[in-house]
């Protein structure tokens, strides 16, 4: 079997009716991983296959006995390699953490396990989640299952590509400025950045703490909603996790959009957006109107500062978050004659170029004499953007637009132009700056046969509306996408 042949609901029903077994699912995932290893490079580490099959068999046996099982029982899930897993290593795709084995599981991983999910392996990513192409990985770039000459997006490129290529049913990614949604868009899968605080960050290795959120990836909206409900909720180990009940997301997927008020920011469909992308998104918006939503245009002028504000704050936080990698307590340690040598050489050799660039930028933005001009004014911009964007939700229930200005670009195309790479985050960073929830859903393919993602942003805490709109988009565009060249193994 191939995992891409089935929707999430078909898989769950297949397991319940025992037409499918967990053994089948894990076997199919391992086979797909095996056949794509040289082409896609989606995983940094795979769990022991015998152990995985043993776990799958145990679930199948429990089901045969009639045991009550969790909502993800026996389902293979891929986990981004910046989310702590005990015994599986957690590298952040960095030489710095090549041999780091965390003595604990992230809260999201613990909840995944409690729901019966089987962690199949740790996925490739941009080093420390810094990047939009998955090219900044110590383990080499992951590639896009739709075209191996193109990037899968980033930083959760491995998770998005693994789900698209049928190497896992579900995946966890992390989204700091679009790192779940953009690769989901590039790979034709669904990716969610929940409300800030909805999912515990305990065990998520920090990049920019005030933006970071773990987010689910799935081939369809319902799969993403189920995974979100499993891993979301208050956690005493994360002081920033929301102390409120998780709303019903799965039931919202089929609710429809009749009566919903949607807005499209003017600049989201401007000349910077590729015409192929614009056409697909406009078509999806038209279908939403046809399904009963009203659509209006939004000005949101402060969004022009979003990318600058995001990079200044994110890199400032990163410069402190990554200070712990000093060669003393854990991680890569270079031999040196004295203490400063240990610090300088461990960091010099352990971090890749992009990470060092971010640390330099962030350190600069916080330095005496520059802090007011950069970090402080970026915080001010963040406050303006937040009040403007969240204020818009007085008038609309959701904001719709493209995930990225382009479809997946070619490997190596932008790696030497970091500014162009940063600017492509224009549509995704507003949700992170404001704490709002957002989802990326496929809305068809371009004439060149590449998937296009549409984004739905909703007010904080309002994930049900987000899933309702996403479900409608998915149904109207004909259901989940399958990459044409993959899966024939």
């Amino acid at each position, binding site marked *: 079997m191939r995992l891409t042949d089935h929707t999430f609901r078909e898989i769950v029903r297949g397991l319940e009716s025992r037409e499918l077994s967990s053994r089948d699912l894990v076997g199919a995932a391992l086979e797909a991983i095996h056949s794509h290893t040289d082409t896609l490079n989606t995983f940094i580490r795979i769990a022991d296959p015998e152990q995985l099959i043993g776990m799958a068999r145990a679930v199948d046996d429990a089901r045969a006995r009639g045991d009550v099982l969790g909502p993800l029982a026996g389902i293979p899930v891929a986990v981004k390699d910046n989310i702590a897993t005990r015994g599986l290593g957690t590298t952040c795709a960095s030489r710095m953490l090549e041999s780091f084995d965390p003595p604990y599981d992230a809260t999201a991983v613990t909840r995944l396990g409690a729901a019966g999910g089987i962690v199949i392996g740790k996925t490739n990513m941009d080093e420390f989640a810094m990047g939009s192409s998955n090219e900044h990985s110590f383990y080499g770039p992951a590639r896009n299952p739709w075209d191996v000459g193109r990037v899968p997006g980033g930083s959760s490129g491995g998770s998005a590509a693994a789900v698209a290529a049928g190497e896992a049913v579900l995946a966890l990614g992390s989204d700091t400025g679009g790192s779940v949604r953009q690769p989901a868009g590039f790979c034709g899968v669904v990716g969610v950045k929940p409300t800030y605080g909805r999912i515990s960050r305990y065990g998520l290795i920090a990049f920019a703490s005030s933006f970071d959120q773990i987010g689910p990836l799935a081939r369809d909206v319902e799969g993403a909603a189920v995974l979100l409900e499993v891993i979301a909720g208050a956690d005493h180990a994360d002081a920033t996790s929301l102390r409120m009940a998780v709303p019903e997301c799965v039931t919202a997927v089929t609710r429809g959009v009749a009566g919903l008020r949607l807005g499209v920011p003017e600049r989201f469909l401007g000349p910077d957006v590729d015409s192929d992308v614009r056409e697909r998104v406009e078509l999806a918006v038209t279908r939403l109107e046809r399904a009963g939503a009203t659509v209006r245009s939004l000005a949101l002028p402060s969004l022009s500062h979003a990318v600058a504000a995001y990079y200044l704050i994110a890199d400032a936080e990163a410069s402190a978050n990554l200070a712990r990698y000093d060669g003393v307590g854990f991680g890569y340690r270079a031999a040196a004659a004295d203490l400063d040598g240990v610090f300088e050489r461990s960091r010099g050799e352990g971090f890749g170029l992009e990470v060092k660039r971010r640390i330099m930028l962030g350190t600069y933005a916080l330095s*005496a004499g520059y802090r007011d001009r950069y970090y402080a004014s970026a915080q001010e911009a963040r406050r303006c953007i937040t009040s403007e964007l969240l204020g818009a939700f007085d008038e609309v229930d959701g904001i719709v637009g493209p995930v990225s200005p382009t479809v997946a670009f070619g490997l190596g195309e932008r790696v030497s132009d970091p500014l162009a790479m940063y600017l492509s985050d224009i549509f995704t960073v507003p949700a992170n700056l404001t704490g709002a929830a957002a989802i990326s859903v496929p809305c068809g393919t371009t004439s060149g046969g590449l998937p296009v993602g549409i984004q739905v942003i909703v007010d904080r805490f309002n994930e049900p509306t987000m899933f309702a709109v996403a479900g409608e988009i998915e149904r109207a565009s004909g259901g989940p996408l399958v990459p044409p060249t993959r899966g024939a193994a």
Partner: protein
Amino acid sequence: MTRTPVIGFEVHAQLATRSKIFCSCANIVGGEPNTRVCPVCLGLPGALPVLNDRAVELGIVAALAVDATVADRSSFARKSYFYPDLPKGYQITQDTRPLATGGGLDVESNGRAVRVGFSQLHIEEDAGKMLHRPGRSSLVDMNRCGVPLLEIVTLPELTSIDDAVVFAEEIRRILVSCGVTSGRMHEGGIRFDTNVSLAGEGGAPGTPCEIKNLNSFRSIRRALEHEIDRQRAVLDGGGRIAHQTLLWDEREGEAHPMRSKEEASDYRYFREPDLPDIIASSERIEELRALVPELPGAARARLRDEHGLAAEVAGIIADDRREVAYFEEAVKAVGSFGFDDPVERGPACARWLVGPLRGLAHARGLAMEDLLGPRLPAARLAELIALRARGRLTETAAKELLGHAVDSRAPLTDLIEQFGLRQLSDEDELSTVVASVLDAHPEELARLRRGEDKLIRFLTGQVMKKTGGRANPRIVGELIRAAAKREDS
């Protein structure tokens, strides 16, 4: 030219919480290196801090005790610098929005009233400890990482070394009496950093230098003497003071300038994104205000004025509010045991607390707090004091009875009989002893009769020896005199 010292302090007190400030590790001094640690206080990737509310409460109690204004909202900040004992590469502290501001302390130094104002009080985490082994590698112990600290920053308002030491002693006393800290200086429970400059003609401010790591009042005095002499010599020689930070070496009794790299000047403070603001409602502040006990200064005055204690004795008892309460309970009880002179009650009880009780604690290797309480209820001590005052016991016997009273729960009257401590006042009984002593010392008796009156003391001593210290010395003296006269006539 006269130059006045201008001195300020940063006081660091370890808060007496059960667990560390951001994790559940026990807050206990010492232990095998690196055993009281967890992913949070080791700063492992993915671990997150969660604030210990008790640390906030103790901080607020301290703030209220020194009349500082508690902020209704305060926040944490990251202070970045690299050092091996700082596992995250930043310290979580408070910067521009501290727990409390203002307040101050009035102390009495050399008979003058001295006022020291505070700029702020905040809470933060302690760092680990380095063990430098000359010529070999250095070791680091992370047990102290995450121990909660209260930092009090004073204004530079002290103008003499004596005043500075009196201030340091008094702030320690206050924090200990509030239960905020153990105050054990040899364990690093309270540590002082000081800044000192010499004001020029007309009070023109000088350049301050900082001295860190002052762990005893003696060090504070010596370090200030040292530094003031140094600065005076430089200025008198026409030189200028360069700002520097010195590290006090307790063993060598010298301060050494820190390497410029250790003395990072730019800490790149920014708000800690992992922790929500601390909210202190006025209700909560009022609840905590009720926990602020009578401070040592007020207790000293009261013991002097209400109980007639000498200043020195009052100072010893006032240092510990539990001892004050015990003292007052004993004073109240002693009257009900027939101690008739109300003016003498206080001094008598105080004398026992400061003298014999401390002697007993010392002899048994106990702390005073171990004795005061169930081991020796205040009423029991009061009964003993009354027995002594009423002449039922000699001083020697009373001290012996004190030891038995702590070891046993039997009534004091039983113990007196059991150990034969009752004072011998029966004249017939004593006459026999006196007669035998006089028989044994004819020489001395003869000299007494010739007018050498001091021999009364010697002969009384011999009677006391024979009776095991139980004889009533006044009656013995009378009997000896009478016997001497009788033989004369």
